[in-house]
């Protein structure tokens, strides 16, 4: 699970081109949006596409569900490990 968290941190940094940040700077439990990393809804779209490409996971159209998955790196890792196709 930790390996997956590490992978996802890298994916977040690469996808969103978060310069000045290294994977170890991201707290897996910290919120990704607004406070924390300060990501926004467009980042969520980009990240959703990247996750789909990397792990074949499709995000539901239910925005409340999505908000839960995007809460933190850890939440994303949980979601990916539960739904990944490979």
């Amino acid at each position, binding site marked *: 699970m930790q390996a997956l968290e590490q992978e996802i941190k890298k994916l977040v940094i690469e996808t969103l*081109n978060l*310069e*000045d*940040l290294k994977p170890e*700077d991201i707290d897996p439990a910290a919120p990704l949006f*607004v406070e924390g990393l*300060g990501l*926004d809804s*467009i980042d969520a779209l*980009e990240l959703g596409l990247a996750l789909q490409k990397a792990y074949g996971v499709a995000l539901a159209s239910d925005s409340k569900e999505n908000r839960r998955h995007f809460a933190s790196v850890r939440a994303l890792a949980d979601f990916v490990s539960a739904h990944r196709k490979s």
Partner: protein
Amino acid sequence: MAERIAIEHLLSRGRPADFPVAFREGQVLTFADFEARAAGWRAAYERHGGHRFALSFEDTFEFAAALLGAWHAGRCVYLPSEIQPTTREKLRGEVDGFAGQIPSSTPLLKFQEGARAEWTPLSPEAQALVVYTSGSSGEPAAIPKHLGQLTREVATLADLFDDRLGPSPCRVLATVSHQHIYGLLFRVLWPLTSGRPFLARSLPYPEDIVAELSHGPAALIASPAHLKRLPDTLDWAGVRGNLRSVFSSGGPLSTDALHACRGLLGQAPVEVYGSSETGGIAWRQRTQDEALSWRTMPGVEVRLTEDALAVRSPHLPDGNWFQTEDRARLLPEGFELLGRMDRLLKLEEKRVSLSAMERALLESDLVREARVVPLSEGNRSVLGVVAVLGPTGRHLHADSGKPFLNRALRKHLSSQFEPSVLPRRFRYLEAMPVNSQGKSTEAALVALFDSRRPPLRVLEHTADRAVLSIETPASLPYFKGHFPEKAILPGVAQIEWALHLGRELFTLPPEFLRMEAVKFQQLIVPETLLTLELTWTQAKGSLQFKFTSEAGTHGSGRILLGEVRG
């Protein structure tokens, strides 16, 4: 023409008791009336205590008396342009009392009937006034002014325009409020100084203007908003013989409005260019030439900073240059205005003013200079900040690191800007990159965000030598495919860095001639902390570079540069 008396001396010197100061509902309000009201207001401030008072009046005569009363009581007057509940609430925290027509629960200053006063001259240094900008980007800003700024400007107006109002009597009519700096100067302070009676009420409707003009000679203090809405159905021709002069300020007067004025009022308005911060800067009257340039007011100096007009003026609080955001072209007799600089950008459907963001960054106390530039990045546009840090920012950068400083600036901006437009890229420099004309071009700023430029810090920098600390993160594009088995930084990247950084730090000739003594002693692998030493020898046109790290010297050489030939 009446004696000209500066505001500082108006009450102490005085005018004849029956001198007409204003008209209200056909009644003459005399200097004796004015002095009595000013004395009553002065007593009211003195009884109330406190230094700062917000004034909001509909009646300009009463306002003028309350204003002079406040100044003679040594008080500072806050002049809100409107008095909506939110403004009131905000003012409550800034002032010690309110006077005038202010609705609802606000306790008001009580005018002291029958008060008498001994008048002494006012000091030009007195902190007399706080006016507000229109706040085109967010919150209206408070602009403090001392009395001398106002009276110097009034003297200029009197020098320039008194003659246009012709022999007495000539009343001053206005469509604009005295709660703005333009109305305050033109319909209150200038008439008081030059002894022109003014109308106590405003004339928002053209019908009222026609009616007042039918009573006798007058000047009209107006704004483009009113002048572009003059109905041609009114009998302007019958009354315009009484219109001695029209003034327009507060925004640009369109050519349509200009034509309407020429046609209906029989004259072109005297247009005045200025702002709440600067006061009056220039004026013009486009009687024939529609593109007539602006003539700088006496005592006002102008120059350009990156196409935008800068002003030094006795109407400003000090002798410093004030940078406007109006683009201009200087001409022998004045200048031509070319539009606003305020750089507005649409970012993911959100409108954002880059200029407002730059101002907000400066207010953070962390940065000394800041520029915000749009960067296109894959599918989206993001904002990048190029900043020169102040002492506090430097400490934060050194102690807590760049990501922490980035977050601090984003947090500071988040009170004024939506999360999705907050800057995502930050570059902290020793000095802004400037070209040979001393300007920071947008292209030079954007180049700082090129992914091929490594993260770096300037450790030392003189006219001919610089030492930089350079990181080589694995994400640098130079490492991609060079080589697939083991990533190393190509020698050309080192030369490119040396040349680009050399151009940023020194003024180098444009032409690359050749290289000498280039050696690459050791490989540079990802995540190496490098030191780059650059030495510029102008006499030889030689830029010497040396990359070192804990492991020793990696690469060194000389790049020879010269002027363009032919």
